[in-house]
């Protein structure tokens, strides 16, 4: 029951983020660049709730985004699924108690997600690669994501540990072994 409620809450957060991305951040942006809060959401789920929920959250959110706005269904789903997997992978190797670690994880996963997404799209739709422009935009996006992570860190940590308690029975053990 608690697990179902948590999944519903994740879906609710997804909806809030979606409306922020398509409305609020169209004007609240840095030099025309929006943050990508979906990456943070999937990373946090993968990191705290484990591999299975991380990947499935990433894939489902990605599929929904593909259906809502993308040209091809599947690209965002794959990219976000990978972020969910990376989240679980990072959980095994790093501590989640430090703010700096979380920030570095957001930094890393935002870059991985956008690079993956951009290059898959570039191959499928034969883009002219604009590496310099892409790098500048990506840098701004990463900074934006990091600032948002810093602002919402207390909330992220609280929600994360609540998820961990519900989805991982062996929380303390995994941290030490």
């Amino acid at each position, binding site marked *: 029951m608690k697990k179902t409620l948590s999944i519903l809450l994740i879906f609710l957060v997804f909806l809030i983020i979606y409306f922020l991305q398509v409305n609020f951040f169209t004007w609240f942006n840095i030099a*025309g660049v929006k943050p990508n809060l979906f990456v943070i959401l999937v990373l946090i789920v993968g990191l705290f709730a484990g591999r299975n929920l991380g990947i499935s959250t990433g894939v489902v959110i990605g599929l929904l985004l593909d259906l809502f706005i993308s040209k091809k269904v599947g690209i965002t789903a794959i990219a976000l699924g990978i972020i969910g997997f990376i989240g679980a992978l990072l959980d095994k190797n790093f501590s989640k108690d430090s703010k700096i670690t979380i920030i570095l994880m957001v930094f890393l996963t935002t870059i991985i997600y956008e690079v993956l997404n951009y290059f898959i799209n570039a191959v499928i739709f034969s883009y002219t690669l604009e590496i310099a422009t892409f790098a500048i935009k990506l840098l701004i996006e990463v900074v*934006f994501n990091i600032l948002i992570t810093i602002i919402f860190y207390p909330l992220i940590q609280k929600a994360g540990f609540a998820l961990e308690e519900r989805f991982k029975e062996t929380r303390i053990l995994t941290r030490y072994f």
Partner: protein
Amino acid sequence: MYKNKKSGAIGIVVTVIILILLVVLSNINIDKLSVVENIFSTIVMPFQNGFTMLKNKISGNDTFFTDLDNLKTENEELKQKNSELEQSLRELEIIKAENTTLKEQMNLKEKYGEYNTVSGYVINRDISNYTGMVVINVGSDDGVQPNMTVIADKGLVGNVVSVTSNTAKVQTIVDPASSVSCIINTSKDAFITKGSIDSGREIRATYIPTDAVLVQDTSVETSGLGGIYPKGIHVGTIKEVVNTQNPTDKYATIETAVDFSKLDTVLVILN
């Protein structure tokens, strides 16, 4: 523990301030220095008022301040009137906005009267910084099909890539995957324009003939080649021409006629 909590809260506040400053500074228009002007006048005004009052007193023009009670009553009445006027102004603004939208639709229909069209609104914008898709509120039920051309009051928007019964996904001409065959209005030189991730309103003209003469501010329109876009739809104006050592690599930047950040009403060409 207390210190940690306190410094954490301060950190969050500082980050929020930094974020807001970044957003404001990065979106500020350098040409409009009214903000600086305002700050300057806020600082200077009290001194100026003080000096004026002093001058009036010395020169005997201070009778204005004697009838203070009358002034207060008058001020109250004016405040009341002002709030009433503000209220009617707000109502007028709403009517004006409605009128503008309806006019826009009418103009669009008249302007592109030769085409069989259906009008719609943008209901969803892209979440990514690297693509340019929009979703409109007309779909297969309204006769919209993939590859149909979408236009706005100022010019070309893009083409429909997929439809549901009530919505359609539109790939705008600024999307990096988009390419449009265009001609220059005056010289009829043809080239291909491609979308870019660079900016929301710029596309790049490539495959420009070596003997083509591109002049800044020249109007560019669709050539009708390629099978998607009809001929003669305004695309934008040439903003910058970049000559390279190899003449075949020459390219130009075109500013699109449509401002995609403010795109609202569109027309889908059905025939």
